[in-house]
């Protein structure tokens, strides 16, 4: 089977725009959660979110540097974020082929959980108030989920497989896993893969709040709101952003002397077949996803050093931890597991890709990023959850979990590059 390595990384998250600033701030236990100020929140139960800092300063996302204002009318924010992260990842990989053959062997698979929700919400208002003649010709292409992949392919001339994953909060992980398989199956040599999300909008917040999924008790203390495994957690904090990786067939990467962040060695998937929003209480789906990934990687459970948990700061945290204990047995007490959602919030369809990147950086620097706000671990949360501060430790192999509404689960396993 062809082997797949990661040769480029791109991030735009509430911690900042750019991989380096993200990692620096994450390791320094900083939070990207703040009060929502760009729309009315007084009647919303949740009034905070992980929001990308915008501007031209250090670590800020400069929208004009992504594309001109004229072109941004054609895309909702999730596409802009996806493009921003893809630009960084592609530049980082140095893979900018100009010949047809190379371009045809380079594909894109970037998903989103929700897509152009703000645009759809605004369009519905326009239709209601002003009628169909006032609907923009860009309404549909600005909202379609696969248009991140579309825009990235158009910008770089990548003419290989063009695909988009939609599996709610597991989207980013599925996109990376599926894209790696396209390379393994020789459908492409290089894939730009990941997830993007921009659903921090009145309608998005109202929807998740109605599903009783959001944190509502910390509106006045935003940086303390996302507290995975903590006794005082009360729901997840929405976040926005994108994580994109460049995946590449190993020999292809070696031949051109590419920098290799790590190898995708395991990918496992499962379905809960249980409930539309709640995870199966015995964590059965999560267990099977992790076991399938270990099997694909050809590893024993005791070879995993670090787990980047799904860990949303909901009741699901203890279910995931229970699943980890079942899969890893005694080794669960030797590995480290943390939730980086404590710093950036839950980036929904982008989360799995952002967390895959954090996992790769954990391997590179041999440091487990912290779980912020974990002051009083809930009952049974007795393994190393890297509370409050980052932890230096040997990390050869990392596993990243992502679970989505509908009962969809994905686990990715990375190891240091050959």
């Amino acid at each position, binding site marked *: 089977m062809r082997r797949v390595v990661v040769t480029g990384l791109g991030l735009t998250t509430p911690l900042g725009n750019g991989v380096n600033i993200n990692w620096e701030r994450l390791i320094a236990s900083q939070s990207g959660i703040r009060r929502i100020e760009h729309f009315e929140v007084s009647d919303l139960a949740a009034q905070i979110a992980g929001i990308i800092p915008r501007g031209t300063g250090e670590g800020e996302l400069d929208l004009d540097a992504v594309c001109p*204002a*004229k072109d941004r009318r054609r895309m909702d*924010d999730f596409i802009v974020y996806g493009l921003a992260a893809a630009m960084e990842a592609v530049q980082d990989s140095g893979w900018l082929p100009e010949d047809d053959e190379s371009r045809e062997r380079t594909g894109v698979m970037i998903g989103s959980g929700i897509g152009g*929700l703000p645009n759809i919400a605004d369009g519905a208002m326009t239709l209601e108030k002003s009628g169909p003649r006032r609907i*923009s010709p860009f309404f549909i292409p600005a909202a379609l989920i696969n248009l991140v992949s579309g825009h990235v392919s158009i910008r770089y001339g990548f003419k290989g497989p063009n695909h988009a994953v939609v599996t709610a909060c597991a989207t980013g992980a599925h996109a990376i896993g599926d894209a790696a398989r396209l390379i393994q199956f020789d459908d492409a040599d290089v894939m730009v893969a990941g997830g993007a999300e921009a659903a921090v909008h009145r309608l998005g917040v109202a929807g998740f709040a109605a599903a009783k999924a959001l944190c509502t008790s910390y509106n006045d203390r935003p940086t303390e709101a996302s507290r995975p495994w903590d006794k005082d957690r009360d729901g997840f904090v929405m976040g926005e952003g994108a994580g994109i990786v460049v995946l590449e067939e190993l020999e292809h990467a070696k031949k051109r002397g590419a920098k290799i962040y790590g190898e995708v060695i395991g990918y496992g998937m499962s379905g809960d077949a249980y409930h539309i929003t709640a995870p199966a209480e015995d964590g059965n789906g999560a267990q099977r996803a992790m076991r399938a990934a270990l099997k694909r990687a050809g590893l024993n459970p005791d070879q995993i050093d670090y787990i980047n948990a799904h860990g949303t700061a909901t009741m699901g945290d203890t279910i995931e931890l229970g699943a980890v204990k079942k899969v890893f047995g005694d080794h669960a007490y030797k590995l480290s597991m943390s939730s980086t959602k404590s710093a950036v919030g839950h980036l929904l369809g982008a989360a799995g890709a952002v967390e895959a990147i954090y996992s790769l950086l954990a391997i590179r620097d041999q440091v487990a990023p912290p779980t912020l706000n974990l002051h009083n671990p809930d009952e049974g949360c007795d393994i190393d959850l890297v509370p409050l501060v980052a932890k230096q430790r040997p990390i050869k192999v990392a596993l990243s979990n992502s679970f989505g509404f509908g009962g969809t689960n994905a686990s990715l396993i990375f190891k240091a590059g050959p």
Partner: protein
Amino acid sequence: MLGNGTFRLSGGNAEALGKAIRARDTYSIAETSEESQMSDVAERVKKIVVEHLGVEESKVTENASFIDDLGADSLDTVELVMAFEEEFSVEIPDDAAEKILTVKDAIDFITKNS
């Protein structure tokens, strides 16, 4: 910019501006007091073209074709027509819109019909 409420507005009087905000917050329509006085159809048409297509003002001559000279695609032209309708409070039927290919076509139609 779609979403997140960061809309830059330009053009038209206050009432039209209000209508534009309600109607389509995806537009860039700019408002300043001088601009709101601007009555010359040609100037207002050119201004809309410059803003929507992101082109240099000097390129927007009366004979310039939206698609051949100013880099518009078919979706841009649909949006341009909508912007003219908004700015001049005229309705441009689809069959007429199809014939508006140049800056001059737009100026002529608006002059005759508003």
